[in-house]
């Protein structure tokens, strides 16, 4: 079985942990050995969140080493750029273009790098690059909170895992009354990359 190392980078409150939990569960049900590690910092208070998800025949370490990530799911542009050392020319990168400004920018004196510069840096560092406003897609469905499922939907087009597994895991992991909304977000994400948007 091919080893798949997936990084999920975002900001506290974006649902990155739920997304990486789903990724890990999907990997296990698809027959992989799975390990996952989260670095939360003080996530609830707006900190950076980075999850390592590893699928493989047999996975020892729960963390991915620099230059070894097969996939990066950047839930926020700056957070994607921050973890660029994990990428290689083999990597596929999916980035949500919606900016969540850090306090050091919104009320302090720091500057947020331009989206162009972020995209250029990431594009040069990987093999396949996709960027889209996953938050806007989620908002159209009713709430920005399901942008995480939009990201997962987009990612699902890049790996060969039976669709039913995704669906089962999502249904099991999200609150009952938001099941339909989350599934719609997942589908919307799949649609985004089906046309090969790049």
């Amino acid at each position, binding site marked *: 079985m091919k080893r798949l190392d997936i990084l999920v980078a975002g*900001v506290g409150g974006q649902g990155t942990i739920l997304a990486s939990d789903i990724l890990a569960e999907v990997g296990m049900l698809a027959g992989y*050995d799975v390990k*996952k590690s989260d670095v939360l910092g003080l996530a609830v208070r707006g900190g950076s969140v980075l999850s390592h998800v590893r699928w493989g025949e047999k996975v020892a370490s729960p963390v991915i080493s620099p230059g070894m990530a097969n996939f990066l799911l950047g839930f926020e542009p700056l957070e994607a750029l921050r973890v660029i*050392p994990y*990428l290689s020319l083999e990597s596929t990168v999916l980035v949500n273009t919606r900016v969540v400004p850090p306090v050091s920018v*919104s*009320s302090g004196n720091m500057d947020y790098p331009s989206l162009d510069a972020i995209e250029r840096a990431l594009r040069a560092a990987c093999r396949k690059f996709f960027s889209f406003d996953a938050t806007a897609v989620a908002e159209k469905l009713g709430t920005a909170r399901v942008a995480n499922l939009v990201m997962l939907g987009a990612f699902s087009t890049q790996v060969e895992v039976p669709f039913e597994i995704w669906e089962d895991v999502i249904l099991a992991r999200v609150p009952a009354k938001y099941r339909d909304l989350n599934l719609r977000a997942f589908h919307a994400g799949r649609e985004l990359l089906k046309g090969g948007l790049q």
Partner: protein
Amino acid sequence: MRKALLLGNEAIARGAYEAGIQVATGYPGTPSSEILETIAKEYGKEIYAEWSTNEKVAMDAAVGAAYSGRRALVTTKQVGMNVLADSLMYAVYTGSEAGLVVVTADDPGMFSSQNEQDNRWYAKLAKVPLLEPADSQEAKDFVIHAIEISERFDTPVVIRTTMRVSHSKGVVTLGERPPVPKEVGPFPRNQKKYVMTAMWARERHPVVEERIKALAAYAEESPLNWAEYRDRKLGIVTSGVTYAYVREVFPQASVLKLGMTYPLPRNLILEFAKNVEELIVVEELDPFLEEQIRALGVKVRGKDIFPPCGELLPERIAELAAEAGLLPAEKVPRPANHAPEGLPERIPVLCPGCPHRSTFFVLAKLKVPVAGDIGCYNLGCLPPFNAQHTMGCMGASIGVLHGMAIAGLPERAVATIGDSTFFHSGMAPLANMVHNGSRGVVIIMDNGTTAMTGHQDHPGTQWTLHGQPAKAIDIEKVVRAMGVEKVRVVNAFDVKEVENGLKDCLAYEGVSVLITRGLCVQVSKAHGGIYWVDVNACIACGTCFRLGCPAIVKSEVKNPKTGANKAAIDPTLCVGCDACRQVCPVGAIHAPEGKEER
């Protein structure tokens, strides 16, 4: 067989279930909190679980349950072990009627701790067996082993995880719960075993020494320790999550994997050392294994290659091993790209609507020295407040404040401590201040929860860990009963009230307590509507920015005279706590239409 993907901490909870544990206690602390939360949530019918007031209380309660015949488990974060240790020491002398396990979740890398202590030393100090799981499967299995060892040798057992084990998920094969006793008692009247008065404790000490020898013999045969022979040029001794890293970095090397790291299996180590050309130890933090192995007369390297600070992630192990000539340089994973220098960090901030904000705004304004404590309110040490000048450990603030007073400091000083921390270890130092006629203001920031670790309940709240109603202890009555004569209770969401209360207390000659009361916004989910800034009225004075609220952002519009950015409010973040409206000197910030402005 049923499999599940579990966090290390969830796996420990499952292990408690499968080990027939019936009582579980602890105090919240990262990275350990999920253990008791999972026990209460998933196995609450089978296992009694509680948040105790502090780790020592938790340990004594578990000891009492184990004396009474119930298998018991205690959880603590790394530094909580220091609080718990006093009770661990006597429990090692007494043993117990049923199994007793202490889980300490250590924090190499200091993601949420004030130091980077290696709790494995406690095993050596207390003479207690120590197990170190490497992943979730072992985290579960080791609880079962720990109970077996505990009951076979009549000793508490310590399980030590690290953040990477506790907070990583892995696939776990699930087992069943064994039969457990329904009834217990009568309580053993075995004074020579359970009363550690000096004359009887003296008789127990040789028992402890004999026991640790027996445990060392057990370690030789234990299924928790094994040697994996591959290429014999390099042999690596390791334990815990570092084992996983070693397997990835040195797939060809022979490995001695130690699941039981105290007491060590002497013969197994000597044999492994004999069978490999070069022996190294890869362990995070202190040379705990290395020093003991060297004491066996074995030539071994370790801390001269791998430093004692921080996590030893695979890439770091590889890089250091390559520098030491143990790995070809091309085997070191190297990033092809580096993140640009100076990217804006996401430093933690008090949430919008946080009840602590007003207190730090006022403390910064009054410029008094502040002895701080452990909790969200430690964020008061950061800009824009810079209003916390010491912070050491749970409960230290009040003792340090007293020290400032007896040192004869001419300034009026303040201690800040949360409600949960006050119950944990703030009451004894406050009693000390009263008794010794001290001077200073103790601010008890009562947000009705243990916020920093994930909003657990405590003796001042109305719920237990099992969700049962509890009697909430009134902090005001407690401090008055302790003899504090000057006590003020203020609304934390009223900045002026906080300022007046603090000034009043600062003017008082003795010990005073200011209780700033306001529910944690993550618990109350309070939303007072979205506020807005009248951009024409705003003079860009920057006062509201000094609240350090993430919802208050720089507007594009500038004051033409000063060039300073005016303020704006991010409608997605504002929860309408009203603090900014209260501090604005020109009345430029407004509540949403229809909301009465105080």
